[in-house]
């Protein structure tokens, strides 16, 4: 509060500083670890576990054993295998929806912020409209029209993520266009396309990376919610949301079936949120501490 900033600061290597700032925050490191564990479960887990669809109806709700490390579910399927397969679905949904939203949203945002003119107010108004609209109502309508599937969940999620990405990349472009080096590039006769992808994009990368770490967990929760409501991944295919739907009926006899997938969603989301917070603080020290 009420600081008089030291008016001259000595520069050290940027990457070193970044890493040091990031590693100094225990919460950020915890986030990184959680994300790493989630990635491990999603990528390697399915290779090491049994078939998540194989049923042993006779042993339904069986407790953990050497054969089934976390026990089995109501249909006698290996719980750990289903959790690992669900992690893979979550990862796919989170990463693909974010990537899709970025690929579409970043150019729109950069162009809107860089060119301004008549296009900017239109983009922003549309953007505000989508931003505040209840996503789930939209997703429900989307699922009603196009059907319930993982592919459609990813598309719906990316549309839901789009406005934030557009707004943030537009904000970046608005700041960057006032910078001298952009003016220099324009004076040198650089074409708008060159300016957008050679100048604006690389300089917005930090912010966009932070934004991606925020968007991925939204995608993960989104997929889980939609699958939970029956609008996403369809049973018997495993997804953390699908698993919670069926676990809801057996809350009394097998609460662990509801606890595992939910806890994993929370851990993965928490990991990405901590990682995002840590990255933002490391990249933008003025807001930290």
């Amino acid at each position, binding site marked *: 509060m009420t*600081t*008089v900033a*030291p*008016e*001259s600061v*000595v*520069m050290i290597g940027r990457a070193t500083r970044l890493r040091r*700032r990031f590693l100094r925050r225990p919460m950020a490191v915890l986030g990184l670890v959680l994300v790493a564990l989630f990635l491990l479960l999603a990528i390697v887990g399915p290779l090491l576990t049994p078939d998540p669809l194989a049923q042993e109806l006779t042993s339904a709700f069986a407790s953990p054993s050497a054969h089934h490390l976390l026990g089995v579910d109501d249909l006698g399927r290996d719980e750990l295998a289903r959790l690992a397969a669900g992690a893979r679905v979550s990862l796919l949904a989170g990463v693909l929806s974010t990537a899709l939203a970025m690929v579409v949203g970043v150019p729109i945002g950069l162009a809107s912020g860089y060119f301004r003119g008549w296009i900017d107010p239109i983009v922003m108004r549309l953007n505000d409209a989508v931003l505040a609209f209840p996503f789930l109502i939209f997703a429900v309508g989307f699922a009603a029209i196009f059907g319930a599937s993982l592919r459609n969940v990813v598309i719906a999620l990316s549309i839901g993520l789009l406005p934030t990405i557009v707004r943030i990349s537009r904000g970046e472009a608005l700041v960057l266009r006032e910078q001298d080096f952009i003016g220099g590039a324009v004076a040198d006769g650089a074409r708008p396309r060159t300016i957008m992808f050679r100048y604006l994009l690389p300089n917005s990368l930090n912010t966009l990376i932070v934004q991606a770490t925020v968007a991925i967990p939204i995608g993960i929760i989104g997929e889980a919610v939609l699958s939970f409501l029956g609008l996403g991944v369809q049973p018997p295919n495993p997804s953390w949301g699908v698993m919670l739907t069926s676990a809801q009926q057996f809350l009394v006899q097998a609460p662990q079936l509801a606890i595992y997938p939910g806890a994993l969603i929370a851990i993965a989301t928490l990991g990405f949120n901590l990682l995002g917070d840590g990255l933002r603080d490391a990249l933008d020290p003025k807001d930290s501490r």
Partner: protein
Amino acid sequence: MTALLEVDHLAVTFRTEDGPVLAVKDMSFTLNPGEILALVGESGCGKSVTAMSIPALLATEGVTRRGAVRLSGQDLTTLAERDLEALRGRDISVVFQEPMTSLNPAYTVGRQITEVIQRHQQVSRREALDQAVGLLVKVGIPDARRRCGSYPHQLSGGMRQRVMIAMAVACDPKVLIADEPTTALDVTIQAGVLQVIRTLCRDLGTAVLLITHDLGVVAEVADRVVVMYAGRAVEQASVHSLFAAPQHPYTLGLMGALPANALRTGSRRLAEIPGLVPAPVDDPDECQFAPRCGRATSECRAARPQWREIRADHWVACYHPTHEEAG
């Protein structure tokens, strides 16, 4: 004359991620009752930090302050925050550089002035409002009573700075610290605002510490000047003496950068002092100006120059002041 405010070997260090920054290394000066003292130097020389240290307005964390700041003999650096609060706005008040952001956008001008009055005086809301109107009249704001109901965004920069001044003098302080009060304003408005500060403080008998980088402003309003370089004072004198016979090469350099002097010498460009202000990371025992100085000798790099009184009440910290060259 006994000093009203005495800054005694003040040093301020900021702790940053890249190590300590020595913003103020060793500052001593006095402010006499009713006088206008200008603290002059380039940006980054530590003049604002010096000023903000006086009413302890620097951040509480990551800042180390050494030395003493005495107001009427009482050392402010030993006071608790609660006692400082009682003192700020009543005995020492501040006008900041940025009139655009220094007023709260959510409160009316009148409320922001009455707030300081009611904080330090036992008066009713109504009396406080009447005082506020009176103050706005004094600082030259037309239609003062109606303006009390205005929000800052409805006023121009000059008007806002006048409001800031009204707020600062509301409790008749002993010391007014004006930190670059006109820097953010249009040139045409600057003179008026300076005039308000000067006449008001003369009338009230308030002593002013004026922080500026602009020697033109100094010549216009100040009685005495302290020139500051790299966290230290390098020259102090009365305005008259300083402008008549500047001693320190740095002061000369600053004067060369004045537009009026550029006109006089017929030069098309303002003179610039070559080189950069040194990074405030260490404090070697040498003249810090030496690298940028045309008169520097090995002596300057061997040890820091001590204060010498060149003429009555004209002090300089330099081995090669102007008068010796001439003489």
